[in-house]
């Protein structure tokens, strides 16, 4: 994300939710690995300031959706449109530049954090702003410190990732994404690699970001979190969207039997 492509409104500040204008619209997203069709025409609409959560069994394609949105995977077909500025049609061969432009608009937080182990916390955070966005190092450092402080990591700037708990590492992962000032945050099961008693601290940070008006797509198995934070829940299975809607509907009283089974199994494991 180069500075010239920065979004007109900085999402880091808008306390007042932006009205219902779509930030991202995806139509007919398809992706196959070899013979295996992993995504079979997925539609998605994310409005500014909205939190969409993706749920579904293992292998249903949730991670693949996020990876396509972040340009880590090139879909076989489908159209992605970012707030009128950028339209990428994957049915035709896609230019590298377009993939990069797509990637610039979002930032991903990974299940296993994927911090850079050879860099300190601060270096992890400023790597993108300084090396990619070419922002002044002093400014990037200043902002990184503020962001780290906001997620309760003041004083950890010079630690290496291995010196932090899982929850702390994931908070660094979130700050690393935030520091890019993306229009859209993508979370791929951000708490499922954490010790149970550390889950809360990370979910709290994500909830706070949602409250601040960040737009995000979150893949999660934490149904209580989804119920409390999401504007829309999408249940996927076998590469298709089975059901979508308000969390109160999808999680408490789903229309589809498959959704009900899945939610039941998660809520009452035995």
């Amino acid at each position, binding site marked *: 994300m180069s500075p010239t492509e920065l979004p007109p409104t900085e999402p880091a500040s808008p306390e007042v939710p932006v009205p219902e204008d779509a930030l991202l619209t995806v139509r007919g997203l398809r992706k196959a690995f070899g013979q295996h069709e992993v995504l079979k025409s997925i539609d998605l609409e994310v409005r500014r300031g909205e939190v969409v959560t993706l749920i579904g069994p293992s292998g249903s394609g949730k991670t693949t959706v996020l990876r396509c949105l972040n340009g*880590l995977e090139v879909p076989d077909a489908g159209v992605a449109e970012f707030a009128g500025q950028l339209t990428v049609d994957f049915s035709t061969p896609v230019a590298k530049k377009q993939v990069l432009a797509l990637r610039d608009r979002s930032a991903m937080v*990974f299940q296993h954090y994927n911090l*850079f182990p050879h860099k300190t916390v601060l270096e992890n955070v400023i*790597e*993108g702003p300084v*090396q990619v966005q070419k922002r002044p190092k002093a400014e990037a450092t200043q902002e990184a410190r503020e962001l780290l402080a906001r997620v309760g990591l003041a004083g950890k700037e010079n630690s290496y990732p291995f010196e932090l708990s899982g929850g702390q590492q994931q908070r660094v992962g979130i700050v690393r994404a935030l520091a890019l000032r993306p229009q859209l945050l993508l979370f791929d099961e951000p708490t499922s690699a954490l010790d149970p008693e550390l889950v809360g601290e990370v979910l709290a940070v994500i909830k706070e970001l949602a409250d601040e008006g960040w737009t995000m797509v979150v893949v999660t198995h934490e149904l209580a979190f989804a119920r409390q934070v999401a504007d829309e829940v999408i249940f996927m299975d076998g590469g298709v969207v089975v059901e979508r809607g308000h969390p109160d509907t999808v999680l408490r009283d789903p229309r589809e039997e498959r959704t009900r089974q899945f939610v039941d199994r998660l809520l009452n494991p035995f």
Partner: protein
Amino acid sequence: MNINWELVWSSLGPLLTGAITGTIPLALASFSLGLLLALVVALMRLSRNRVVSAVARIYISVIRGTPLLVQLFVIFYGLPSIGITISPWPSAIIAFSLNVGGYAAEVIRAAILSVPKGQWEAGHTIGMSRHQTLVRIILPQAARVSVPPLSNTFISLVKDTSLASLILVTELFRVAQQVAAFSQEFMLLYLEAAVIYWIICLVLASGQSALEKRLDRYVAH
């Protein structure tokens, strides 16, 4: 077994000179250049372009599949027949660099592949290009992994430089042969040379440990 200690002592100076003016600079120069070459070859080998990757693969196979002695001979005695005549030292450095390039390429390739895929993705998600991610994220981590096997390559190289005498470069082993030829004490001189090689290797090995420790600062102990 009576040992001619006087000879051991009087030959020590020449042998050390051979090590310091021959073996060590030859090994250092060839290793540095070979490492650069190896990095290029490793990246070629990992390239998605089939031709590029095949070229690297054949290069590695030939280098590792044929005796170093023949490689030296081809470069020094063979190339002049197609009009390329290179002096002993440059020939030796070229031959040893090409050799290290083949062996170290596989080490570096394995090290690059050993860095978790998630590191590439993390680089990409913060907007880095393939090249930026490689240089700033992947290679620093691969470096740590490749220190032990590369130090093995280096240690082998130190001993292999003894073959340089075949193409008129005077180093430790050549000096030992010279002294032995005059004194007829081959066994003794070779043993003395072996001790010096061993000491060089011990120094290298301790350098390796120190380097590993330094690079280990960012991993749990």
